[in-house]
């Protein structure tokens, strides 16, 4: 096994920042400079970072597109909706089972996760329009599967040629009568990253599905879990814990989700938000329209899981429920602590970097902390300023040309269904006791002073960072994985985890400890050089001697 000796790599953040910018043309350097922040770690005095802005053309970015955020991330894990991609074949092909969203077909047996549907647009469709083909494709899907819902996703050319996908889907919905059909204008060129796609997806789910099913749902402590995508089974682990605690999860947005879960989401009494970036606006809309308060939770990290469960219990306030949650935590924690103590003998003091997602780079810090590891640099691929600096900056966010064309839904109280779950007095009493609603402080206050917070890190900078700061582990996505590992540094994917999981909840924490222990202490990193490369002098004697 590798030793636990701490690597002493000295670096000065200002120097690292200067090095990252040195090679760029002036304009690029100026722009990147605002996205690289040396953290002050002082709450309220956190310097401003530039985020959610365009990536410079030619710079090898980690980011994807709006379609990827809409179809790939948000709608991808829904199992009983037939998701048809309207466009040339590629977009649907690449989003086909590649995100490791696990699903359970459940008792109804509906599961289209393993299928890939596309209108496979041809040049004639581009020239003459693709609306007829889309209508026909929807009809064929309906005839073959009779699903309860069909969703349509626009790819780049659809917006350009002006196919009216919303009218097509509306007509098909009316024609079928028993199948909800709707569309997402999530062309890849919209916005600056996947983030715009999350927004477009969530808006349409809210507009077309939420509130459709008014049936009462059984359960005493009913919540929705927002922004949890069941990568590697994370959602399954969280649901296991919920069940033990007596929490009824009405709807997960959107890991292993069903149409009916979305349709019934307004029946929950609390919204628990995991991924702030992808879904905080849905939480706001659910509150405005239906009167359901929301809180930020985090089920990444065992301590964070316990804290989040307590927060849920405190909201409902029943002593019996609070006791049950405490009993579950007491039952789950010993094996977590045992695993933690074991791995810490090998992970203590090691360093990590995380450049991923819009929340994950913050959430996973919990797990590294639990292992005694230090996050020396982090950033989001598609986060906004509030994900770095906290929600208090939202009113100050600049609305630029790219964010302006992403629709903001204006939501009002639903006359029939609005029901404030807590009275103003009850909310105030909770807040006076230190309870925080709709609060998220972001990544920056959680990072140490002089660590580097970098938005939209690119391949060149990633390589430089590894070279200069020599972390023990680097976390990003599949595209970054092997260039980092070629440098002899293990790389863990935190989008889709490479393999394995879950990493959420208590079981997940144990899995993560073991996985990081395996990665940072693997023997393979000691094999970079052959014996003759380490010691190239010739010492043999000639055969004739």
């Amino acid at each position, binding site marked *: 096994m590798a030793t636990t000796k701490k690597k002493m790599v000295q670096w000065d953040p200002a120097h690292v920042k200067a090095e990252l910018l040195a*090679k760029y043309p002036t304009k690029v350097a100026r722009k990147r400079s605002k996205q690289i922040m040396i953290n002050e770690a002082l709450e309220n005095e956190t310097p401003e970072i530039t985020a959610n802005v365009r990536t410079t053309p030619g710079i090898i970015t980690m980011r994807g597109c709006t379609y990827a955020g809409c179809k790939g991330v948000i709608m991808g894990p829904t199992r009983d909706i037939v998701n048809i991609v309207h466009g040339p074949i590629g977009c649907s092909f690449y989003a*086909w089972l590649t995100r490791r969203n696990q699903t359970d077909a459940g008792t109804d047996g509906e599961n289209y996760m393993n299928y890939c549907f596309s209108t496979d647009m041809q040049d004639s469709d581009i020239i003459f329009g693709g609306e007829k083909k889309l209508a026909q494709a929807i009809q064929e899907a309906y005839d073959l599967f009779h699903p309860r819902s069909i969703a349509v996703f626009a*790819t*780049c050319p659809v917006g350009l040629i002006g196919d009216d996908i919303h009218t097509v889907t509306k007509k098909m919905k009316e024609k079928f009568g028993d199948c909800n059909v709707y569309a997402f204008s999530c062309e890849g060129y919209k916005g600056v990253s996947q983030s715009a796609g999350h927004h477009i997806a969530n808006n349409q789910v809210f507009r077309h599905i939420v509130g459709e099913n008014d049936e009462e749902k059984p359960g005493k402590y009913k919540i929705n879990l927002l922004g949890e995508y069941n990568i590697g089974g994370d959602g399954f682990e969280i649901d296991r814990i919920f069940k033990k605690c007596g929490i009824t999860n009405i709807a997960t947005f959107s890991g292993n989700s069903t149409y009916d879960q979305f349709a019934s989401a307004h029946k929950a009494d609390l919204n628990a938000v995991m991924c702030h970036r992808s879904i905080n606006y849905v939480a706001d809309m659910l509150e405005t329209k239906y009167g359901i308060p929301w809180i930020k939770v985090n089920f990444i990290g065992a301590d964070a899981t316990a804290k989040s469960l307590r927060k849920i219990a405190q909201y409902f306030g029943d002593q019996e429920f609070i006791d049950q949650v405490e009993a579950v935590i007491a039952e789950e924690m010993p094996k977590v602590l045992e695993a933690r103590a074991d791995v810490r003998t090998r992970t203590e003091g090691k360093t990590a970097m995380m450049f991923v997602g819009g929340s994950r780079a913050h959430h996973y810090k919990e797990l590294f902390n639990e292992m005694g590891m230090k996050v020396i640099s982090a950033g989001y691929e598609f986060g906004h300023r509030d994900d770095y600096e906290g929600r208090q900056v939202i009113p100050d966010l600049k609305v630029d040309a790219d964010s302006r064309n992403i629709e903001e839904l204006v939501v009002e109280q639903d006359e029939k269904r609005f029901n404030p779950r807590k009275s103003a007095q009850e909310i105030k009493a909770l807040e006076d006791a230190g309870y925080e609603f709709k609060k998220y402080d972001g990544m920056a206050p959680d990072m140490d002073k002089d660590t580097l917070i970098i938005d939209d890190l690119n391949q060149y900078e990633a390589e430089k960072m590894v070279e200069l700061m020599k972390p023990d582990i680097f976390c990003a*996505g599949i595209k970054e994985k092997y260039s980092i590992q*070629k440098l002899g540094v293990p790389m863990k994917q935190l989008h889709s985890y490479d393999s394995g999981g879950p990493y959420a909840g208590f079981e997940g924490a144990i899995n993560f400890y073991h996985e990081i222990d395996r990665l940072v202490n693997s023997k393979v990193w000691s094999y970079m050089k052959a014996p003759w490369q380490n010691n190239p002098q010739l010492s043999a004697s000639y055969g004739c001697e």
Partner: protein
Amino acid sequence: MLLRHTPKEITERSALMINPAKTCQPIGAMYAALGIHGCLPHSHGSQGCCAYHRSALTRHYKEPVSAATSSFTEGSSVFGGQANMLQAIENIFAVYNPVIIAAHTTCLSETIGDDLKQIRKKAITEGKIPKGKYMISASTPSYVGSHVTGFSNMVKSMAGLAESTGKKNGKVNVIPGWVEPSDMEEIKRLTNMLGVKTILFPDTSGVLNGPLSGEYKMFPDGGTTVAELISTGDSIGTLALGEWCSAAAAHELDTKNKVPCQVLDMPFGLKATDRFIDALRIMGGVSVPDELSMERGQLVDMISDMHQYLYHKKVALVGDPDQLIAMTEFLVSMDMCPVHIVTGTPGKEFERRIKEITEDMPFEVNVKAKGDMFLLHQWIKNEPVDLIMGNTYCKYIARDEDIPLVRWGFPILDRQGHQYFPTVGYKGALRLLEKILGALQDRKDRDDPETTFELVL
């Protein structure tokens, strides 16, 4: 059941593609471009295209895949992507300093009518392409053809670099088509063995099967050099392997540089390898060494040794046209019966070739170009097979129908080896045969009752 909603009854579909057996052009252009030494592929479109192609290639090769993008926004989609492309060229040479940029279009930039050739000219005029550096481009609209077409288009653009000096270089151009880095390496081994000097392009060996040594080279040592590509115009001839992947580039060299060409099937299996070796021998003016005849003999030997397990075994195949034509011939040559054959790539000629190859087979053959894996699955439900050969997505059908699967083609996302062990040539055919036999015999060992379970097979 993973594909539980797939009915046995086949109904006509004219608009909905389900479980495609192809993807779009740009990824093929990107893969081909990685076979040029010092090349940075560039995707002229939204960021997502580039991200998806890089991810798909990375998952298949488990290697870094660098490529840049024009990062289109709504504005560039309205006003054209020229400004983005020019900015990209400047940044790429400043930050990454490749020898050459190989840019391809996407459905987005094609739909708005961006012309990369014209943008390149502008970049040259504005001095954005430094001296001694290059840029090539290919038009790869995603709504035409498939990933195979995109590969072919980029290889054709490589041939566009060819110059004729009037003095022949004594070399044969070999265009391998979309095969694995290991296959390209094997083709080079075979040409070396024959003693024919060749220029192989593209060549992803040493690029997408690199070592782990603690050093990251954004531009690995492998790949066909630009100098070699320029020199293809002086070669004595071109062998293009695969009509779909390689013919266009060979014809380009023929028309533009008067380099005569021959289009062959990809050298998978006995007969196609025979034709490749024979053509190379004649074009290069050499005789075939005994070691190579020995390799051929070993393959024939293994086919004869194991024929009892292969005879009349039914196979379902899915993949790309050039690969499927050669594989179908290989299977038929061993008295196996490929009965269901699907490619997502369009081409009536594909169906004709397959029908020709399978003419004398004792079973009806289902073949479809521009088909999908949903149809393949339905065919299998109606007429079960003993073996499936295709990419990783086949494992959903294989598990549901309980049929052995040999992974072959693109993408392979759940097994290793394709980067390192070739399936072209005689040695490659031996490996294919080993895999096919392994799958069939593992199945036999699993299914045989105790009474007939055998030690010696």
